[in-house]
């Protein structure tokens, strides 16, 4: 039954998408489209929640469409239910948000039809239960999101972003296609049940893992496949950016979990090593690049890369534990990863909504032209601040809980047998610790430069608060961040059936623990209680304020800025985004980025202003993609000669090719 409801939602999304082509021509047509999307997402959300909470067995459905000998298989189990919750939560929120921000859309027909179709694609990926349906849904999702990326195709760089995204998405699908080909084996058992039953292991499994790491990783934004992400996510309209960063990267994580944890059998022990190494690098590089950005939306997109790294650390740990038979520890790693999936969907959507609000109010994404928005947009500022604190993993908010769980998973890993994995895990732990601290710096910068200080441009000075609907969505998500941070036990229990199915073990029941604390392993080992800490903070803060207002003076005077006696009235003397990041750029710049700093100092007597240029490069471009493009270029140049052969030579070539292929077949037999 839940599968049918889920499928009906997908069909209804498509119907809305088609209707949107007509509706988009009317001024208020967007309201109908977004309201319908919100309602359908909500139905999908409730449906998936019911499936997960009800603890029903997975329900499957086979429709006679698609490949004639295969049909289309659909199935809704605990794993897809959880990811459907994440998807539809994000979908509902961004549809409602778009109800508020919709009137600001310059070209609605470029966005409206694709938005519900995008939601349909993501929902369908979760429901698919055979390789064919999965890949069709995956590719549909990629193409529709590409259309959304190039919605504002005249804005600078957006077509390039769309082009790179298209290449990376095709590459990812190719890898997944090959992976499914390997999984299905020579008999061509493409439905997941058959693959699950055959449980490929050994070299095939390792090869599939690598392909999935590339295929799903390129969609999720794993370093060095992340390059499209900071270009494409900001290019889309803000509510779509929220979906792309908050939800679509999770669809990719779903693909990874589905294939690696559910379909694959025994994996060789070194495979977790590869996942952990990539995850650790992704985490630190993602946050370091984020720190260097001064475009607010691009900063958020780069930061998604970091969070994907954290999720993959949890998954890599779970793989390592599972390969060695520690099922309880694997459950902890998996819980941490899934918890972070939910958390990231919450706070990254919230932050993109906030960035969208700033963009609507000021027309600026560049933080160097913002500032002082806390006065003009006080409510957005509060919601954005909560999102910043949550993503920086600060207690008592939710980001901290999932990082804490990941740390706990790292700390029980000395149980693992000796080997390179025992050296990899502490290294990954150190990288995770480093990235947690850098994330805080990144979001002090993001909030401090755009919302605090004095306005750096006329637009920032004359901004006004955004509409009530957008604010409502932001505050709901901020509230959810606080709720998931203070009552994490309920989320862990919600995840229990998912983890149970994948790791053959689950974390102990948390809901019945005294004071609602969470105890992932044993009370003597570690525990955390967000709600007590929040209560303590509120009590001590109030107590202090009361004490001071009762026993000390409340006298307050407003005056000009002091600034050690040298106040400067120009807003340009404030710390900017790039000056804030300068110390960290200097410390890590030599090794991680190829920072180019150039000072143009005019000669004495020359009245030109001195200039300072900084360029930060993402090394993935020139380490991986530069040589790769040159290689492709030169190969293409050589192959180009094939276009100018005579007919005799073409015939010879065909003949030689035929002979070679026949020889190959003969040798293979």
């Amino acid at each position, binding site marked *: 039954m839940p599968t049918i409801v889920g499928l009906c939602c997908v069909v209804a999304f498509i119907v809305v998408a088609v209707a949107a082509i007509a509706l988009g021509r009317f001024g208020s047509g967007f309201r109908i489209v977004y309201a319908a999307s919100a309602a359908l997402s909500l139905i999908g959300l409730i449906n998936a929640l019911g499936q997960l909470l009800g603890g029903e067995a997975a329900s499957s459905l086979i429709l006679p469409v698609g490949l004639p000998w295969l049909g289309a298989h659909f199935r809704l189990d605990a794993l897809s239910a959880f990811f459907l919750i994440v998807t539809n939560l994000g979908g509902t929120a961004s549809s409602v948000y778009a109800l508020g921000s919709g009137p600001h859309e310059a070209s609605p027909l470029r966005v409206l039809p694709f938005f519900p179709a995008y939601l349909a694609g993501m929902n369908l990926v979760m429901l698919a239960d055979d390789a064919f349906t999965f890949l069709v849904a995956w590719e549909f999702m990629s193409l529709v999101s590409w259309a959304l990326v190039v919605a504002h195709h005249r804005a600078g760089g957006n077509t390039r972003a769309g082009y790179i995204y298209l290449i990376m998405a095709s590459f990812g699908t190719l890898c997944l296609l090959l992976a499914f080909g390997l999984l299905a084996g020579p008999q061509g058992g493409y439905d997941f049940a058959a693959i699950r039953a055959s449980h490929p292991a050994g070299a095939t499994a390792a090869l599939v893992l690598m392909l999935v790491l590339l295929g799903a990783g390129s969609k999720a934004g794993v370093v060095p496949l992340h390059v499209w992400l900071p270009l494409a996510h900001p290019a889309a309209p803000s509510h779509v950016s929220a979906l792309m960063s908050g939800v679509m990267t999770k669809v990719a994580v779903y693909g990874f979990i589905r294939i690696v944890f559910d379909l694959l059998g025994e994996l060789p022990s070194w495979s977790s090593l590869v996942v952990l190494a990539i995850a650790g690098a992704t985490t630190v590089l993602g946050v370091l690049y984020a720190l260097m950005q001064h475009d607010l939306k691009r900063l958020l997109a780069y930061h998604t890369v970091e969070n994907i790294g954290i999720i993959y650390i949890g998954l890599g740990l779970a793989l390592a534990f599972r390969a060695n038979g520690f099922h309880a520890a694997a459950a902890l790693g998996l819980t941490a990863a899934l918890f972070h999936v939910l958390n990231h969907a919450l706070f990254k959507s919230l932050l993109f909504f906030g960035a969208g609000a700033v963009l609507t109010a000021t027309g600026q994404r560049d933080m160097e032209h913002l500032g002082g928005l*806390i*006065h003009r947009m006080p409510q957005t500022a509060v919601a954005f*601040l909560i999102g910043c604190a949550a993503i*920086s*993993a*600060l*207690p008592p908010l939710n980001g901290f809980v999932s*990082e804490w769980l990941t*740390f*706990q998973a790292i700390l029980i890993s*000395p149980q693992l047998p*000796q080997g390179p994995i025992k*050296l990899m*895990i*502490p290294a990954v*732990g*150190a990288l995770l*610790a*480093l990235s*947690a*601290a850098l994330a*805080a*710096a990144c979001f*002090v910068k993001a*909030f*401090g430069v755009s919302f*605090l*200080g*004095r306005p750096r441009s006329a637009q920032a000075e004359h901004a006004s608060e955004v509409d009530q609907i957008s604010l409502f969505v932001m505050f709901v998500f901020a509230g959810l961040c606080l709720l998931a941070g203070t009552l994490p036990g309920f989320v862990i229990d919600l995840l229990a059936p998912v983890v149970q199915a994948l790791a053959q073990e689950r974390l102990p029941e948390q809901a019945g623990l005294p004071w609602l*604390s969470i105890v992932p392993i044993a009370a003597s*080992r*570690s*525990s*955390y209680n967000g709600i*007590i*800490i929040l209560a*303590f*903070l509120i009590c*001590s*803060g109030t107590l202090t304020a009361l004490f*001071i207002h009762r*026993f*000390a*003076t409340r*006298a*307050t005077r*407003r005056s000009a*800025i*002091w*600034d*050690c006696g040298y106040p400067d009235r120009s807003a340009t003397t*404030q*710390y900017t985004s790039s000056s*804030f*990041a*300068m*110390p*960290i750029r*200097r*410390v890590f710049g030599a090794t991680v980025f190829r920072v180019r700093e150039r000072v143009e100092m005019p000669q004495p007597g020359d009245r030109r202003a001195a200039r300072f240029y900084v360029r930060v490069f993402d090394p993935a471009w020139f380490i991986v993609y530069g040589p790769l493009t040159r290689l492709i270029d030169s190969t293409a140049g050589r192959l180009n000669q094939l276009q100018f052969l005579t007919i005799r030579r073409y015939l010879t070539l065909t003949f030689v090719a035929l002979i070679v292929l026949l020889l190959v077949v003969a040798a293979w037999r």
Partner: protein
Amino acid sequence: MALIYELIAQGVQMFLVLGIAPLMVGVTRKVKARLLRRRGPGLLQPYRDLWKLLHKEAVLAYNASWLYRVAPYLVFAVTWVTAALVPTYATGLLFSWSADLIAIVALLATARFALALAGMDVGTAFGGIGASREMLIASLAEPAMLLVAFTVALLIGTTQLSAIASHMIDTPVGLRVSLGLALFAFVFVGIAENARIPIDNPATHLELTMVHEAMVLEYSGRHLAMIEAAAALKLVLYFSLLTCLFFPFGMATGDKTFGALALGLVSYLVKITVLAALLPVGETTVAKMRVFRYPIFLGGAFAAAALAVFLLFVSRGF
């Protein structure tokens, strides 16, 4: 009845750390002054300073936002709660399990986050420079601190501070290479996090090298008092953490009899007074560092702690 007793024990710890925090600052200042052959102010001077600040008018810039006014209370409350959750004179207090060592480190990050934002609120160059450098120091010190936490957790098998302390008392782990490295890293991190020489100078003013002082430059009156009190609390918190992780002897572990608690209290006070007196000895022997030498100082701490963790992953015998 037992619950009330437990609540009182927790409450005593909460107000104990608050009460002695300015005194410890007084001790450091006094010892430092004596080492510099000055007489120095009395031990109680920090209390008087706080009281004076509390009764002064607070001057706010015209463009200061609500965040600027809330931040001092938030920083103080977070630091206070964190300090109250670190075991001082007894283990196993009522709420000691609500935050483990990792959560303590993260709570300190919350306070720092609020303070750095407050530094950027008015939009001055000094505030920005302070916030930026504070986050640089944090981004190097916090991972080192987490690795220290890893070391202890791997050695003892728990991240609960109470459990660590009672384990260390009941079954002494002896002299360990890993603990020595962790102690080394912890001291470095503590110096950096508390804005002491050679990273920062708490007595500085109007210097381009100031970090913490630059961040709070615009604050005055009761807000400044809150920030000063939070800084003092943070110092005591690091002293408590040091004693709890590395020198927990004397702490009341089993039944909380009056004698055991009193012994725990006295030993705690003695230990942190010794630490408060040792701090200026180090401070007077080294010079303040350039900003871009911080990574060397803190990278050393990070490397030491990472080495300890690697050793423990290889063998629990280290």
